[in-house]
């Protein structure tokens, strides 16, 4: 977690430095999404804030979602817009950690897991850098919980691994 935050700060710092030299612009992407697989359909909300430069975007994001358990993904995003028209296709990839934020049962020790999200979509620019975003793709989130105890026969380790694989559709605003 600490390393991720430091990485995010470094990324933003370098973007800020670049901004001073190459007219890098701040950009904020805020999305609402529906995530679905054969098990369940769930919702997510996320915001990604960073800088864009020549069709590229890099930023840090945080989300809130509920995949049976409440988790908060914290991630870095890289995004590329294509073309010069008002309707620009884009691709992006997110990577980070999935912070377990639900109730904690004793005697388990909860461990955060990985977060991955990648998709493609269209940005409908209605004003300079303001756009409506539609995207679809794949999202993975994981976490685990573990308990250890001793018994007369020996040591016991009991670990639950949760891996959520979903396809998603997101709708959002970029400005």
């Amino acid at each position, binding site marked *: 977690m600490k390393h991720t935050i430091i990485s995010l700060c470094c990324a933003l710092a370098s973007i800020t430095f670049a901004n001073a030299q190459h007219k890098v612009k701040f950009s904020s992407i805020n999305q609402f999404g529906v995530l*679905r*697989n*054969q*098990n*369940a359909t769930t919702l997510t909300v996320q915001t990604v804030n960073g800088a864009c430069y020549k069709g590229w975007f890099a930023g840090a994001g945080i989300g809130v979602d509920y*995949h*049976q*358990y409440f988790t908060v993904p914290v991630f870095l995003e890289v995004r590329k817009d294509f073309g010069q028209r008002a309707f620009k296709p884009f691709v992006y990839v997110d990577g980070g950690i999935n912070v377990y934020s639900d109730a904690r049962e004793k*005697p388990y020790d909860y461990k955060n897991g990985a977060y991955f999200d990648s998709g*493609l*979509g*269209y940005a409908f620019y209605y004003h300079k850098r303001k756009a409506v975003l*539609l995207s*679809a*793709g*794949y999202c993975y989130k994981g976490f685990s919980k573990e308990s250890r*105890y*001793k*018994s*007369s*026969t*020996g*040591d*016991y*380790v*009991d*670990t*639950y*691994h*949760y*891996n*959520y*694989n*979903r*396809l*998603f*559709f997101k709708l959002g605003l970029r400005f």
Partner: protein
Amino acid sequence: MGIGTLLTFLLSGCFKDNCSRTYTYYLPVYKTLGQVRAEMKSMPAKDVELPGKIYLYGNYIFLNDLNKGIHIYDNSNPSSPRNVAFINIPGNVDMAVNGNILYADSYSDLVTLDITNPLDAKAVKFTEDALSTYAYGYTRTRTDSTLIVVDWIKRDTTVDIDCGKNESVILYYDGVTLNSYSSQGGGKSSPAGIAGSMARFALAKDHLYTVHQSSLKAFNLSSPKEPSFEKTIDVQLAVETIFPFQNKLFIGSRSGMAIYNIDDASNPVKEGLFSHATSCDPVVADSKFAYVTLRSGTTCQGYSNQLDVLNIENIDNPVLLKTHLMTNPHGLSKDGELLFICDGRDGLKVYKTKDGVNIEPTQTISNIEAYDIITHNKVALVVASDGLYQYDYGNPSNLKFLSKISVK
């Protein structure tokens, strides 16, 4: 984009959550009762796997390996204890040494072993059904061919589970929880060896006293090789430890400390009771004070983690004098003005107490997970999760590490 969205929802059926549970279980290894008894003797020394209770007798340390048997160490030089033998005793948790005789439990049986030569110890008597612990093949009716569990083989397995919150939880318990490292109140007044404070066997007045569940049992040892059962007393408490001092037995339970008078050794009589919140509670005592550690935990229940100091001058009515907060205290020992507390993951805490009530910390050894302790001749023997440590406490504010017997 519309096609992409459509595909997202059409293809979503191809993706599913993947959740699993990986857990440990143990497969039993059986031998016949005849084989088990024939093998209850000194075997070549081997490494400790799961250290349990300790007993000090002369220059020898007896260290229980939970449910497997007893390791014997020659501790003539505490800086370099020598692992000399291992006695196979399946189901062994507790022990006591009186002269050249070792008394040990083996599930429900009380085993008497001649340890005149610890390198050639041998079982001389099996007192069946002495301890009322029926498990792992020990039943009321058994023969030499009855199969007994002598070991467990560790296995790990992974199964798929539902990813929701209501996954079915399959728990694999083995029937005996490790109220671990709970050895009983050993005692400086003990006529023979010295036990840790979490022992469930105690020797006093030519008698062996055992506690289990809510029972206190007395065995006459006038003929040491032939322990003779005399009486079972229902102490009406969930008993965990026993500590003999002078003509008293201090019995620690989850709900309080009971004091039994053994003026008539064959017939312990209840004299006092101090009730407390539900917790595990090893006890040590001297002529004026009793020190009771209360701890919480899965086995112990309760939420108390503290040291209670009781005035026991009026044995009919023990009075709580002071409570000191601890983290997760287990075994304890007192030597003069020094009080040693095994405070679980917080390590071994050493206190000085001039008035017996107020305590002043002198040192904490925090790099061990300490459970039980014996202090003798300025050497502290500390059972920890990773082995048996010995410290010289000649200078109580600067304990000197002497040696460590590591687990395998």
